[in-house]
C-alpha cells in the first residue's frame, strides 16, 4: 500500500512538472526512477523507450505503466498511470471552464492568432526531427514522400480519406518488402 502511494505521488510530481508532453518527461522519469529511486535499471528504461515509440498512445503513459507494473504489478501500473495524468487532468478541466470566455477578450484573441502560427511551426519542427531520426534509405523516403503528397491533397481538397488508410497501406508495403527480401536471402543461401 505504501509503495502504491509512493508510485502515485512520484508520478503525480512528474506529471505536474513536465511541460511540453511525453518526450520532455523521459529525462525526468529516468532521473527519478533510475538514478534516485532505483526502481528500474537504465537498460529497462531504454527498452521501455523503444516499446513506447513502437506502440501507440502517449509516451508518458507507456513509461508510467511500465514502471508501476515492474514495482507492484497491475495495481502499481494503475497507480503510476493515474498519478501521471491526474495533475494535468485537473488543470485542463479548470481551463476548459473559462477558456471560451477568456478567448473572447480582444487581446487574448489576438494573442491566440499569433500562437496559431507558433503551433504550425512546432508541428513542422516535430516532423523535421522525425525526418532527422529516420534511416535515409529509398523505401522510407518513398513512403514519406507519398504520405506527404497524399496528406496534402486530403487536406487541401478536404477528401474523406482517413490517415489510418495511409498508415495501414504503409505497414503493408513494409511487410511486403520485408517478405521479398527474406525470400531472396533464402534463395541466395540455397
Amino acid at each position, binding site marked *: 500500500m505504501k509503495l502504491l502511494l509512493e508510485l502515485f505521488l512520484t508520478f503525480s510530481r512528474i506529471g505536474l512538472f513536465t511541460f*511540453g508532453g*511525453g518526450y520532455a518527461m523521459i529525462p525526468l522519469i529516468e532521473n527519478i526512477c533510475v538514478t534516485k529511486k532505483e526502481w528500474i535499471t537504465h537498460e529497462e528504461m531504454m527498452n521501455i523507450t*523503444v516499446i513506447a515509440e*513502437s*506502440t*501507440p*498512445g*502517449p509516451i*508518458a*503513459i*507507456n513509461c508510467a*505503466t511500465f514502471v508501476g*507494473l515492474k514495482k507492484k504489478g497491475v495495481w502499481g501500473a494503475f497507480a503510476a*498511470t493515474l498519478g501521471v*495524468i491526474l*495533475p*494535468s487532468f485537473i488543470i*485542463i*478541466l479548470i*481551463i476548459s*471552464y473559462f*477558456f471560451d470566455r477568456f*478567448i473572447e477578450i*480582444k487581446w487574448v484573441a*489576438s*494573442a*491566440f*492568432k*499569433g*500562437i496559431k*502560427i*507558433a*503551433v*504550425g*511551426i*512546432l*508541428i*513542422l*519542427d*516535430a*516532423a*523535421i526531427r*522525425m525526418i532527422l531520426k*529516420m534511416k535515409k534509405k529509398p*523505401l*522510407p523516403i518513398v*513512403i*514519406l514522400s507519398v*504520405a506527404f503528397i*497524399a496528406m*496534402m491533397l486530403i*487536406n*487541401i481538397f478536404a477528401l474523406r480519406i482517413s*490517415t489510418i488508410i*495511409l*498508415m495501414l497501406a*504503409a*505497414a503493408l508495403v*513494409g511487410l511486403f518488402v*520485408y517478405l521479398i527480401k527474406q525470400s531472396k536471402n533464402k534463395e541466395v543461401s540455397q
Partner: protein
Amino acid sequence: MILLELLLGFLFIGCFSFGGAYGAIPLIREIVLFYGWIEEEKLSYMIAVSESTPGPIMVNLATYIGSTKAGVPGAVIATIAVILPAFLIVIVLTLLLKKLVENGVFQSMLGSLKSCVTGIVLATGAYMILVNCIGSVNTVSVDYAAIIMTVALGAIYFGSKKIIKNGMSPIILIFIAGIAGVFVYGW
C-alpha cells in the same frame, strides 16, 4: 450519444497514435473534425495550451475536448479512452510478448508506418501554416501579417537551434507568438 462518441473517438486515437503527441495530432484533428467536436481554429489554440501546461499533450487535448462536450463525465471518459490502449499494450507486452517488439515482421511494418506518420505530420504542419497565411481552398484570403510573422517566428525558432543546444523551448516560442499577435492584431 456524445459520451459514446467521445469513448469511441478517443479509443481510436489511442490505438492508432504513433510517434508521440505531434504524431497523433493529424489523427486527433481528423476525428475531432469528423465528429464536429470543436472548430479547427480552436483545436490549434488548444494544442498551444496543452503544450504550455504540464502533462502529455494528447491527454490534455482529450480532457479539454471531453470537458467542453460533456462536462466532467466527458473529460473522464475521453481521458481514459485515450490512455487505455497504451496502458493495456504495455502490460501485455511486458508480461507476455516481449519478443514481439524485436520481431523482424513487426519491425518492418513499424518502420514503414513511422515513415508514413512522418510524412503525415509534415503535411499537417505545412498545411496549417498554409491556411494561416493564405486561407483554405474555399476561402482564399492572403494574410500578409501572418506571412511575415511565420517567417520571423520560424527564423527565431529554428535559428535558436544554431545557438543553444536544443533550441528554444516551445513554450517560449508560444509566448513570443502571443505577444506578437497582440501587437499585430490589436488589443
